[in-house]
């Protein structure tokens, strides 16, 4: 029975839109479903997960503390490879964030109503991923006391960041991205926060009330809300493209073979959306299963996301191919050397891991059976994220470890601190995400209600009679 209901909205009929909320839920039942994880007694499983995440966060703190104490020598960096896991992790986490913004902003402007069930969690993922990302540029020189040099702050050294450097643009791009994403997320939360203010008591009522900003649901409130949401969506839309474009400039504006490529901006943006959607699928499969959101987050949502992964994965595959084509077509011997070295050199294992995870495995999504199988979705998405981490590793480390001067060639090996910092960043991410699922609504209640038949003035006409009459 469940499968038939779940699959019910996969077919698209010409005369009738497929429902996005299944199981004949009502306005009040949707509120109850979403409130349940916040209002129930804290389950043991949550505590176990939270303690694991918190321990990993502790590992991150200890690794960073040791880094600050000793310096970047605790990582496997050498004279040739000055950027390795630190910047790999930074690009990896920033990239993951992009799916959330695409879902919340671009799909909103394109009236893709299926976004409503997943946008809240995806935006939370964006913010937490950007927080994880921001850690790495801050610590990657190991001298936290000069971190303020990132910003153009007047100082006694008369020293100013180089405005022609994309590294400075990156500071502005990522911090703007973080600010706008947080604002967008918060504005979207206001009506739901008011719901929880009204449903809770005592301190919780006070805190939810504080952040609900006096929302009473009047028409004027809704009018302002919709306008603010639209403006923020419009502000976020260019950010989906600009942030990873500028991250790619960190590499593309250098003259290093393997980095110096005009294809980098679109290639990076596609890769970011690719990895981000994989992360959204992983998180939403778990949330849907744990919090029983089957009627709100349907198989149709997953299938749509799988299609986006298939598209962006193919774009990334095209970019990999095009890099090799240009290496040959340009006739540049250094460019050619670095790409042959990627595929056959000391890091060939990383290169082929990337190709397998990013180009080959997602092609399975051509099959609807696989697109609608949760296990397959989950496993393929994990592979995509592994592949996308390796993509950044391959770009950064293989380009650096060989250079024009063979005497300086080197091989990068991660140390235990490299690994613990990376694992620790997942601890930071999941600590924040677990707090999110416990204290904030993981589905945008007020938005989901707008795509339900009850929100349609003719929603009671279950036989769709008004369409037959040709009233509209």
């Amino acid at each position: 029975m469940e499968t038939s209901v779940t699959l019910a909205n996969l077919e698209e009929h010409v005369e009738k839109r497929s429902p996005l909320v299944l199981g004949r839920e009502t306005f009040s039942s949707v509120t109850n479903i979403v409130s349940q994880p916040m209002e129930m007694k804290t389950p043991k499983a949550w505590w176990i997960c939270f303690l694991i995440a918190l321990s990993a966060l502790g590992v991150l703190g200890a690794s960073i503390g040791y880094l600050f104490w000793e310096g970047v020598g605790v990582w496997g960096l050498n004279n040739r490879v000055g950027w390795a896991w630190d910047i790999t992790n930074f690009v990896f986490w920033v990239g993951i964030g992009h799916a959330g913004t695409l879902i919340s902003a671009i799909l909103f402007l394109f009236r893709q109503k299926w976004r409503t069930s997943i946008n809240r969690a995806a935006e939370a993922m964006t913010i937490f991923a950007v927080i994880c990302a921001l850690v790495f540029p801050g610590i990657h020189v190991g001298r936290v006391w000069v971190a303020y040099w990132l910003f153009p702050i007047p100082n006694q050294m008369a020293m100013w960041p180089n405005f022609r450097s994309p590294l400075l643009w990156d500071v502005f791009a990522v911090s703007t991205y973080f600010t706008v994403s947080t604002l967008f997320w918060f504005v979207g939360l206001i009506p739901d926060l008011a719901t929880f203010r009204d449903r809770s008591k005592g301190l919780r009522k006070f805190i939810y009330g504080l952040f609900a900003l006096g929302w009473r649901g009047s028409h004027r409130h809704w009018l302002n809300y919709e306008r603010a949401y639209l403006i923020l969506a419009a502000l976020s839309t260019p950010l989906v493209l600009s942030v990873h474009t500028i991250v790619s400039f960190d590499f593309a504006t250098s003259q290093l073979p393997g980095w110096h490529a005009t294809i980098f901006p679109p290639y990076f943006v596609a890769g970011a959306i690719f990895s981000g959607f994989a992360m959204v699928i992983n998180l939403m499969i778990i949330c849907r299963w744990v919090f029983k959101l089957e009627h709100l987050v349907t198989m149709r949502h997953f299938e749509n996301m799988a299609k986006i992964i298939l598209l962006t994965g193919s774009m990334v595959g095209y970019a990999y191919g095009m890099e090799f084509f240009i290496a040959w077509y340009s006739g540049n011997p250094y460019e050619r050397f670095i790409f042959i070295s990627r595929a056959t050199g000391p890091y060939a294992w990383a290169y082929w891991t990337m190709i397998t995870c990013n180009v080959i495995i997602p092609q399975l999504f051509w099959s609807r059976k696989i697109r609608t199988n949760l296990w397959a979705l989950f496993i393929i998405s994990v592979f995509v994220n592994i592949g996308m981490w390796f993509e950044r590793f391959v770009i950064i480390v293989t380009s650096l470890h060989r250079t024009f001067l063979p005497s300086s060639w080197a091989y990068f090996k991660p140390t235990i601190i490299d690994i613990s910092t990376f694992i620790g960043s997942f601890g930071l991410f999941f600590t924040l995400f677990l707090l999110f699922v416990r204290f904030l609504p993981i589905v945008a209640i007020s938005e989901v209600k707008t795509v339900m038949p009850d929100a349609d003035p003719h929603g009671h006409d279950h036989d769709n009679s008004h369409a037959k009459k040709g009233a509209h």
Partner: protein
Amino acid sequence: MTPIFPKWTNRIPTLVAIGAPVVLVSAVLFVWYFFSPKWTDVGYAPKQPVAFSHQLHAGQMGMDCRYCHSTVERAAFAAIPPTETCMGCHSMVQAKSPRLQLVRDSYKTGKPIEWVKVHMLPEHAHFNHSIHVAQGVNCASCHGRIDQMKVVTQSKPLSMGWCLECHRNPVPNLVPKDQVTNLAYDSTKTGYDPTKDPHRQRGVNPPQHCSGCHY
């Protein structure tokens, strides 16, 4: 329904709108002044083991700086004189003064006097006295009127921005080469123009790139 928040909370946005810029501007001004070496370093005058007065020696008696700080023309570091330099005079002048007991002890035991360093630069900034003296930067440009100080006091911030000010516009601090240790010399009054000085072999072109000082 009783309200959760009292009515005065409606004023919070206005108060924040007024208060936030005030707090922000005050914070900027606070950091701008109190975190600067102009506040943290200028005026540093540690107590020295012997109450040596530059005012007396360099000012009233007119001793040349280089009599004691003898390496300043040839080395990066302007030497602190050994006890022997003091005793050159003080074995006869004020030979019994109790204030010079430490100097005499040091002379006898061979254990140097532990003078406290006043003008300090970070290790990653290389300052070379010889080139600055050779180019005719007056001692007072960086050290102030040492000849008027009873206790040596840091009178300039010695910050990177302060160094760069002169490296960008050195002319006001340059004097004829025989006037370098004349702390009272004022090139704005004498109208000295280093670009027209026939005794200068090198042009006035101090480095402004990073490795000028950080090498």
